[in-house]
């Protein structure tokens, strides 16, 4: 049933209706100047490494909203396809929605063709979309996966740039993480070595970068399957508070209490057509 006061459903793409209004608000008179709310960024360390049997991806779990930690256990390794996972850094909403959209597209492709998608397809779809939006979507992504042509690791930037590499780190903690990767990476590592390398790279980011912290998640992708290890390494900082901060009932006083009995006025039964019935 159509309600007369329902909003117009959103069209495709971004809605720029409020842009002029926002510019006026931000450039208002000295007293009237209003700052736009800042979107939450993940301020992250993410890393990926290609090893003998596949790809290992790693990420920290802290999401920050300027200087406050908004989420201590945020999941930054996103599912794209059964054989492809993606780590995201940058604006949290952008990485979530972009990877979701990519995942939906590839699921449709899989159903149409009966095959697992290839990593290059995911990269091309992402590049197309991010380039089209001229960098307005703040998604810095590391894509890793194993398909019929082998193990691949790619990075896609917010403006649509792409790089195919054997090891990589992104996010605000990329410099300390790259330091570890550049020092210890070698081709054809075995699984334990690769996991230790990625884990140590993320750990360097966590300790040296204020935007990264808490736990380390890992995702190991091989042609046999995926091992999503969340968390791989928990934060060692588990300081217990010395006192108990519990409030007894009555600390917030009850001023008055009213009980409204709900009366049963009218009862109807309506038969519905459902998938189960016929």
């Amino acid at each position, binding site marked *: 049933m159509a309600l007369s006061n329902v909003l117009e459903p959103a069209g495709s793409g971004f809605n720029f209706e409020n842009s002029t209004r926002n510019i006026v608000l931000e450039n208002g008179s000295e007293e009237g100047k209003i700052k736009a709310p800042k979107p939450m960024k993940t301020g992250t360390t993410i890393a990926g490494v290609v090893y003998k049997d596949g790809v290992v991806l790693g990420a920290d779990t802290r999401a920050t909203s300027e*200087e406050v930690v908004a989420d201590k256990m945020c999941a930054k390794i996103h599912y794209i396809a059964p054989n492809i996972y993606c780590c995201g850094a940058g604006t949290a909403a952008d990485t979530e929605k972009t990877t979701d959209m990519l995942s939906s597209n590839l699921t449709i492709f899989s159903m149409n063709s009966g095959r697992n998608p290839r990593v290059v397809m995911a990269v091309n779809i992402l590049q197309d979309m991010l380039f089209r939006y001229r960098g307005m979507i703040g998604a810095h992504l590391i894509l890793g996966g194993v398909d019929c042509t082998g193990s691949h690791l790619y990075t896609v930037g917010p403006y649509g740039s792409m790089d195919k590499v054997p090891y990589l780190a992104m996010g605000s903690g990329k410099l300390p993480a790259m330091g570890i990767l550049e020092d210890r990476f070698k081709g054809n590592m075995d699984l334990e070595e690769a996991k230790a390398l990625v884990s140590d790279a993320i750990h360097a980011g966590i300790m040296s*970068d204020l935007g990264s*912290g*808490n736990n380390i998640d890992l995702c190991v992708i091989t042609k046999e399957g995926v091992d999503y290890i969340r968390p791989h390494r928990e934060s060692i*900082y588990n300081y217990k*508070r*010395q*006192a108990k901060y519990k409030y007894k009932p009555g*600390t917030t*006083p009850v001023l008055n209490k009213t009980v409204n009995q709900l009366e049963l006025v009218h009862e109807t039964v309506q038969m519905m057509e459902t998938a189960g019935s016929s």
Partner: protein
Amino acid sequence: GSLMMISARAFGDNAQMKEHHYTGPVEHKFSPYAFNGGTVLAVAGEDFALVASDTRLSEGYGIHSRDSPKCYKLTDTTVIGCSGFHGDCLTLTKIIEARLKMYKHSNNKNMTSGAIAAMLSTILYGKRFFPYYVYNIIGGLDEEGRGAVYSFDPVGSYQRDTYKAGGSASAMLQPLLDNQIGFKNMENVEQVPLTLEKAVQLVKDVFISAAERDVYTGDALKICIITKEGVREEIMPLRKD
């Protein structure tokens, strides 16, 4: 009432974390200030005072030092906590220490906590038009031996408090202290006076919580405990990530 006459935003764009996008030519203006993070807290009791601070020195997303405490001992009965721009914190404490010596030489006695507070207010207002980017909190014992806390804004407005938090996690700590020490927003609770042990426990707990959620606070906590015996220090580790 609020003492904040000048917000941190007035101190220029270099004080903020850099945006990752480059969306066109950006005009850079030299900013004489930087924000080095850090949280300070002071509590006054019946016969003691505490001044606590974390020891992390940061800038943007990076850490300069994990061992840079923000409490500075001024006399046997007074400690000051300074957070904000580290350059100004160092200069300001040097100036205060020099003025304390001058007072001692001309008046043949140490400055009292109240006198130091009044003097700091004039020092800060002297730079009203190019302020010291420092949030100060003084903790000490007054002439009667009772705990005293004086909190300041960057240009010298000050008042005596029972407890005050300043610096980057101040907005997270102050409401918790209002509740636990000031017994605000609670009824039917026995208002026991704060003991030294309870105060130290509370300070440690609130800093653990601040380190969880504020990226600029962490590494270690240093508490200066001021009693008639003098100034004693306690150090406790905090999150390093």
